[in-house]
């Protein structure tokens, strides 16, 4: 694909961005109006202000040399980590998570900007130490850079926002050339961890019968024995590997360590997760477990999306949204309104626009001569992609409810600004792709 650039300016990327932001404003407007046309929410005006200032930021970041950002990346990263830390003490609570830092009416969500800061710093480090990346010790160190903000955000607690960091960091490590087995180790541990965490609630809410083997996970003593046994096998395999360097010892250690970590972690998780968080995952598997409670959002959202049909009910004419069946319409569930009012046609348009942005990003990764720019672009497009996949997935019940925004479209200054700055950076990478 050739870029339709004027003086090296990535016009296609810019137009796709502008279109998405405009669609977002239109549906934020739609979410704040009743079926008889009474406007009860001024959120769309605020969004317009954030969009205009955000576009200015986009142009600013596109025009400055990103080498500056790279030089400052450690300080930016530490600065936002410090802000996250401050939020834990001085933050304001919104929807049960202490995630806002602000004075008077103005406030920011440091966790939104910290994603970008982490991407920049991780890209800098990965490029600088690219020759050591296959070394396990370095791999752990790099992954640790992403885990610091994750820990701080988990304490807010905001599970969804924290979870975005992991796939973004992994894909950057992957593109930077980390060993596949190291990445697989984390992915497998993560999936097994969630699986083991959910098994006992699954038994209670979905299977509705006692599964004898489950006491291995729920009974404290039995679980401790199990973890000790698997841990022992892991230790044996490690010793064996270091003594005689046989491959089968390596893989035995690899898998038994995954199992140990996931078992121990699931035990901690079940203690730390709140009832409502477990229920969100349960209703993802089957919304009808609690159709009037935690499953309500999913059922209503899917109904809204499905009833939109091919062409939609028309702008401002959605019934599910205007009769307030859908919660958090302007933020988490904006995709439901869009699908209801513009139908499959509108959905396809939005998908196409997102795809244009992502494909332009991949094009930048391929053409730039600078490792930093390539890895940072990977982080940015994967961040946009994961937000898209999780948010849209949630609206059509392919993903559990997590409450993370849909970039460009969802109402909210912090997320809009951070994504527009990200696009600005992509453009800066593109403009300076032949430099160095």
């Amino acid at each position, binding site marked *: 694909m050739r870029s339709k650039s004027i003086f090296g300016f990535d016009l296609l990327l810019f137009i796709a961005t502008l279109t998405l932001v405009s669609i977002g404003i239109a549906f934020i407007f739609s979410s704040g109006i009743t079926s008889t046309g009474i406007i009860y929410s001024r959120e769309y005006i605020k969004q317009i202000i954030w969009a205009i200032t955000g576009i200015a930021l986009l142009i600013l970041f596109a025009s400055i040399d990103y080498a500056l950002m790279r030089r400052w990346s450690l300080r930016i990263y530490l600065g936002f980590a410090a802000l996250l830390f401050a939020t834990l003490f001085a933050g304001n609570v919104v*929807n049960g998570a202490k995630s806002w830092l602000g004075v008077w009416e103005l406030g920011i969500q440091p966790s939104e900007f910290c994603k970008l800061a982490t991407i920049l710093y991780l890209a800098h480090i990965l490029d600088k130490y690219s020759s050591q990346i296959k070394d396990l010790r370095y791999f752990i160190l790099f992954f640790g850079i992403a885990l610091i903000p994750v820990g701080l955000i988990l304490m807010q607690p905001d599970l969804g926002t924290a979870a975005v960091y992991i796939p973004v960091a992994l894909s950057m490590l992957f593109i930077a050339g980390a060993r596949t087995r190291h990445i697989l180790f984390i992915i497998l541990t993560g999936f097994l961890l969630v699986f083991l965490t959910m098994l006992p609630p699954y038994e209670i809410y979905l299977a509705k019968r006692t599964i004898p083997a489950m006491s291995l996970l729920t009974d404290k003593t039995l679980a401790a024995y199990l973890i000790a046994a698997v841990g022992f096998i892991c230790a044996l395999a490690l010793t064996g590997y270091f003594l005689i360097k046989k491959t089968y010892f390596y893989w035995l250690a690899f898998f038994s360590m995954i199992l140990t970590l996931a078992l121990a972690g699931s035990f901690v998780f079940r203690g730390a997760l709140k009832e409502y968080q477990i229920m969100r995952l349960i209703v993802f598997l089957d919304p009808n477990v609690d159709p009037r409670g935690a499953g309500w959002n999913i059922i209503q959202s899917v109904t809204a999306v499905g009833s939109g049909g091919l062409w939609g009910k028309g702008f401002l004419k959605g*019934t599910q949204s205007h009769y307030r069946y859908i919660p958090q319409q302007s933020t988490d569930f904006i995709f439901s309104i869009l699908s209801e009012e513009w139908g499959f046609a509108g959905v396809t348009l939005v998908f196409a626009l997102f795809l244009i942005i992502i494909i332009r990003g991949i094009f930048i990764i391929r053409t730039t001569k600078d490792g930093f720019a390539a890895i940072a672009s990977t982080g940015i497009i994967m961040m946009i992609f994961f937000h898209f996949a999780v948010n849209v997935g949630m609206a059509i019940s392919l993903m559990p409810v997590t409450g993370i925004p849909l970039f460009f479209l969802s109402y909210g200054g912090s997320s809009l600004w951070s994504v527009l700055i990200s696009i600005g950076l992509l453009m800066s990478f593109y403009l300076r792709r032949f430099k160095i």
Partner: protein
Amino acid sequence: MHSGDTALSKSRIYFMAALIVAVFSVYLIHLFNLQVVNEEFYQKRATQVTQRSIPIYAQRGEIFDRNYDTPIVSNIDSFAIDIIPGEVPDGERDSLYRRLAEYLGGSADDIKRRIPLSYADLYQPVEIKSGITLETITYLAEHLEDFPGVTWRNKPIRNYVEKETLAHVLGYVGDITREELQVLYNKGYSYGSVLGKSGIEKQYDLLLRGQDGKEFRTVDVRGRKVGEALVSEEPPVLGNNIVLTIDRHIQSLCEKALGQRIGTVLVTKPATGEILALVSYPSFDPNLFYDTSNTEAFRQLSLNTQFPFLNRAIQSQYVPASAYKIIMTTAIVEEEVIPLNKTILCPGYFNYGDRVFRCHKHSGHGHLALFGALAESCDVYYYTMGAEYLGIERIVDFSRRFGLGEPTGIDIPGESAGILPSPGWKSKIYNDRWQGGDTVNMSIGQGFLAVTPIQMANAVSMIVNEGTVYKPHLLKEVRDPVTGDVIEEIEPEVLSTSTIRPSTFQAVQRAMRQVITEGTARVVLTTNATTVAGKTGTGEIGIDNHWHSWFVAYAPFDSANPDDRIVLVVLVEAVNEWEWWAPKAANIILHGIFSRMNYDEVRANLHTWYLRAESQGER
């Protein structure tokens, strides 16, 4: 930095791109399935009748005093009026609001403001006023055609039986605000929840509130009820009843003994930390708050310059004045800085550097030893001890051991910590060096020192218990609302223990006894119902001829059973007419408690000059 082509693997980039495209495709296929293939199914579902849940509010638990006979906070039947916005014809809204305002009080604008604009076409009821009487409901029911879209339901209101009594302890309840909901999200609260806003109601909200139930009705897409049939119901769970440590008979006695004087009275049980009475005057009537549209009462109370919302027993900080001498006495005995029988000459003044500090008795007390000095509250003796024998470090150390400068952890919100000054504190706050004169002042409890009455109660408890202080608390038991069974009983919790020798505390106890038998309080502490040990205090706050009047005490002095003992703290603020009321109130209270009399019986029984004088100027 790198130069040349990036060493990134092409295949990995393509793998990532393929993954992204795959997810997009799966989503798009799924959406095509939902929106195009199954469109009809979902369209039917969208227009179909659905179920909507309506909360059934749980009845809040009742609150009892320690006698557990009749509730001091109960619920009474009352009604709330709702409007179903969708049922009000468009042109009639304003006139409906006007008519409603006429019968309910308030203004049409208030009602209009309660209905969110986004609800204008919905059939979801919006509460516009609660605490409505049956008469008003009857009237509305008879004139239903004049009030389209108006419905009502049962919503009990909180009844604080004794009104102003215990208002500071009990607190009050109100509708949840947006800000509170943001914080309590996911904890079982929702719009329309009632929750405790202060005092016990706030502290133990989770125990009291129970669990709201839900009833499910069939509604159409706009929320209109279809048929009357109830689909199903999740019954609410009643809130627990709670029993306080307060004894309402002692409470009432204390309130009347304090009378209409700005101040506070605390009665505690040192053996457990239980609070038997807590009076703070002026008070307020928590019943005024159930009606959220009645903001006028709230406004007037919050503008009142006497601060009726202030719980003076735990939130106000006062100079302890001579009452502080019990702590100084403990330090003097424990540190053995002077033999107990060695006398100091009080000429009525004390020279320190180039400053002269006066004793309250300007003619001087003559030669006094420690016990005599406490009994007569001789300032010069304590000036000398503080400035020349103990030194500021030890004074601060002992004050800290007595818990000054730290909140006591009482189980209602809003407690103050008081101020425990020290050289470090002064340089931090005032950026100024600690002067010898500051030590002299602090030796008699004046200067920067500030304490809450509950801290003084703890200090006396420490002397009574010879080192152990139990955390002051108001919750005694949690009881099942139906069977009355005790679900949880609060065990005494040790707040602090001291390494000070028991013999020291015993000496201080004897010295405090002497204050009553031979000292300053002799003339007013006339009760023969018990043996009292205590200390008076007269706090200088810069108003001529007006002082804060303190009295801290415990009784009985000579009881062998620690369970019998009570600690009493009375503080009457200097803004009142000066009548040295604290020890006088204490005399009435102690006589009443130990001879089991109410206030009127005490007045008839206890023939003292000040009670007779008071009855002439009847309040």
